[in-house]
């Protein structure tokens, strides 16, 4: 079985994001970029399935500018077997990404696609679900455990009420939650080995997908600064303030 793992290049989780002066987006000039942390978890899960003999090949795919090669090289250095970059300089929305991934799935025929549940830059949390819908495959989202059993995969999901375990027929879509595993680091010997692994570069045109955005970003602003708290003297004062100032009662 092949496992396909889509990975996204995002602003590093340690970087404090700054809004551009003209409020059109986040300033990414000279900012450290890394693999989306949920996607690292997806890569790790796929590698563990390969190491246990349940999968034969792990393919990483990324969609974005040529710098996404770095993200793919990280996946290769973690242990993925090969990588596909679909080069596109414009911002791609989740539906476009899902359509492109569907085209890759049609070509590669993986038994499992493991995605991060969301990317930490736009927090959309849509791509996995859309891909499942486009393919007509079952989906197990927010996975905290993924067990392969014959022609099924059992996915334990982190839901509001606790943990829910679902059994999906393969092929299937899984999206990862934070507690699924702890991703490994790229080791030096694996970085050296990754140099010899294939990294194919494609364009959106190769898959015939329309990348025109459906949404327009009107305005991006920093969250309001948090004001310092106050200590009230009495319950009466508290009720008064909740009524008059906070307007919550």
């Amino acid at each position, binding site marked *: 079985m092949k496992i396909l793992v889509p990975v996204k290049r995002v602003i590093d989780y340690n970087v404090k994001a700054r809004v551009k002066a003209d409020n059109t987006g986040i300033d990414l000039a000279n900012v450290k970029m890394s693999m989306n942390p949920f996607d690292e978890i997806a890569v790790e899960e796929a590698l563990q399935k390969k190491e246990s003999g349940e999968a034969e090949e792990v393919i990483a795919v990324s969609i974005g500018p040529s710098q996404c090669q*770095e993200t793919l090289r990280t996946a290769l250095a973690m242990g993925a077997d090969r990588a596909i970059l679909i080069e596109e300089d414009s911002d791609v929305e989740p539906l476009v990404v899902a359509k492109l991934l569907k085209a890759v799935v049609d070509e590669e025929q993986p038994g499992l696609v493991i995605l991060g549940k969301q990317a930490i830059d736009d927090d959309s949390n849509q791509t996995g679900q859309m891909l499942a819908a486009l393919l007509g495959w079952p989906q197990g989202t927010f996975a905290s455990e993924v067990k392969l059993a014959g022609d099924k995969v059992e996915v334990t999901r982190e839901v509001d009420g606790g943990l829910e375990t679902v059994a999906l027929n393969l092929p299937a879509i899984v999206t990862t939650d934070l507690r699924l595993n702890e991703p490994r*680091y790229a080791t030096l010997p694996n*970085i050296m080995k990754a140099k010899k692994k294939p990294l194919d570069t494609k364009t959106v045109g190769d898959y015939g997908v329309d990348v025109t955005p459906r949404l327009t970003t009107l305005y991006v602003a920093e969250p309001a600064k948090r004001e310092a708290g106050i200590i009230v003297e009495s319950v009466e004062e508290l009720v008064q303030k909740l009524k008059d100032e906070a307007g919550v009662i």
Partner: protein
Amino acid sequence: MDFALNDQQQDIVRAIESVCAPFDDAYWLERDREGGFPEAFVQAVADGGWLGIAMPESVGGAGLGITEAALMMHTIAKSGGGFSAASAVHMNIFGLKPIMVHGTEEQQQRMLVPVLKGEERACFAVTEPDAGLNTTALQTRADRTNDGYVINGKKVWTSTAQIADKMLILVRTTPREECERPADGMSLFYTKLDRDRVDVREIEKMGRKAVDSNEMFIDNLEVPYEDLIGEEGKGFKYIFDGFNPERILIAAECIGLGQLALSKAANYAGERVVFDRPIGQNQAIQHPLAQDWMALESAFLLVMKAAWLYDTGQSCAAEANAAKYMAAEAAYKACQNAVMTHGGFGYAKEFHVERYLRESLIGRIAPISAQLIQNFIAERVLGLPKSY
């Protein structure tokens, strides 16, 4: 001319950043307060195969150059660990190069493989209390016995000897008076640090408490013949070959430390509000930090040039020495300005910059003093007469 890092070098920097990320400011602050070797950090570096970055593949290394090793050490120092982190792994990166170049195949497997796996730790015993930078005057000696040698003498400033299993030691095997040249008659051994025969005493220091430095008193240490590296009498030359790469690595570590201090200073200057504005809006605060950036960037270019010369087999002594000098001075200034930018808080340990300042002195002193570097440049590059 291409100043960009290649793909692999970028990958190395990014991967090392990931390895270092869990070891945050609080970890290094505690190591500095309480001492104790940063075992967890070094093991993480060893587990990633990083100790072998500049060692050949035959012993489990990656076979990369001093350029990659310098980028790695720069990233480690810059990650927040400064010299506490860099010195904890430094010796393992290049110190054992003489074994790689002059050791037999059997010695390479026996000596290098466990070090690169992180199973054994090595230390480097060259400097002596009565010799200092005048290395040929060292007095520790090895006398021939039936099946090897017996070593007697004392060493100083041996880093990590508290936790080392093995040591690379330079000793006299022929008295200086009987040698044609002072650099002859010294031999190199890589042998067990037998604590029954070697008394290791830690030196309390100004900074870098986590990585011990020591005096060693060696009393009748028996060393088998198999532990002699290369030929008897040629040890100094073997060690000498490692001087330039070591300077390049130390220089890269200095740059990392200086940039770490500068980033702390710039952050603080941008956030600290006094008289209703960030102090970083004042040119008296801005300009020293801008100067530090320029000095560190320039010195880093020289470090990379020296590394490139070394890796391409060209003479790099002037550049390696100059890079060490420039990097150490730039780092010291950046650390000092970082403390001054923080004002009173700069003097407080929890703001980290005072620790960096204490560590920055290491680069100015070791492994060679600023004065001797200037002598070297004056004599060997400018052709002026020797002054000492």
